[in-house]
């Protein structure tokens, strides 16, 4: 459900950058540390886009960004949220350094929730003003 609010935010960002042109594709990057299920986001994106002026029918594309943390004490890097194993034993997350157990860490990647780019439809520029033919 919570992907609806995020989908609305993505549509709003796309509309701000579209400058009045119809949007056909919205490309996003979604880090694995965000609680966003891309398939759910896709569903709600469809609903939010439907209600928007410029994004109706637009397609959502996403790139999943892996999570990576770096230890502030020993510089070890690790993935705190490995993809769930097939037997659903995937709840292994740890934000404590596996090498030295320090709790001091920074996020290298995985926090992304970014609208990277959009494709918009533009009328072809008329070769000459006198031509008068619509694009």
């Amino acid at each position, binding site marked *: 459900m*919570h992907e609806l609010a995020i989908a609305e935010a993505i549509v709003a960002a796309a509309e701000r*950058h579209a400058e009045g042109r119809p949007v056909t594709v919205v490309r996003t990057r979604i880090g694995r540390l965000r609680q966003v299920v891309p398939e759910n986001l896709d569903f709600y994106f469809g609903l939010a886009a439907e209600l928007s002026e410029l994004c109706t029918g637009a397609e959502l594309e996403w790139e999943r960004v892996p999570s990576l943390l770096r230890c502030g004490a020993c510089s070890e890097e690790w993935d705190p949220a490995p993809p769930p194993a097939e037997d659903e034993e995937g*709840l292994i997350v740890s934000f404590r350094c596996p090498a030295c157990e320090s709790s001091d860490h920074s996020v290298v990647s995985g926090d992304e929730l970014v609208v*990277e780019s959009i*494709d918009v*439809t533009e009328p072809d520029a008329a070769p000459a003003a006198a031509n008068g033919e619509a*694009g």
Partner: protein
Amino acid sequence: MHQTTVRVAEGALDANETIAEANRADFDAHGVRVLNLMSAPGAGKTSLLEAALRDTGEVRVGVLEGDVRGSLDADRLAHLHLPVTQINTDPAFGGECHLDANMVRSAIPEIPLAELDLLVIENVGNLVCPAEFTVGEHARWMVSSVAEGEDKPLKYPLMFRTCELVAINKVDLLPHLDFDLAGFRSNLDQVNPEAETLEVSARDGSGVETWRERLLGLAAAG
């Protein structure tokens, strides 16, 4: 007609962040510290506020209540004679399940900021969405009740990761439950090794004095 790619490179929630910054600037201008208090529905946010805010001493406290509908929580706090402002999220698309910065922004004119040292924002009960949307707060705390089970930090890591303090409520129920307190702490440590915890019971009052001191202490943290 042809397709053009436009680079956006913008966080989807950047617009919310910008409004949250504006809220924070308003709070700072009045010297008001703001707590965003979050939990699952029924964890006991309102009960713990009721218990703590009976006596606020020198600290002038206000509450902003976020609910999908109605003013039940605000009504419960009415006897405390504190300024309580209610936001209902239901005029939005079907009733938003969280407060966002813009909803708080629209409520600010109704909050007597000049008369407050501390504003507690009681978010909509939900462990998912409120984690994503900041509202201009200075501190983020959670209430997690023992009735919810010890696995919750692993199931809702973003929420538990973004909070500095977790009040473990309803500890009076521990003798009747299979809740594994050590397991909860270990799960919390996995997702947020820096989080502080307080064991409390709004019902029998245990830990409430410490909770109250910590809460009112936020006002001085500026």
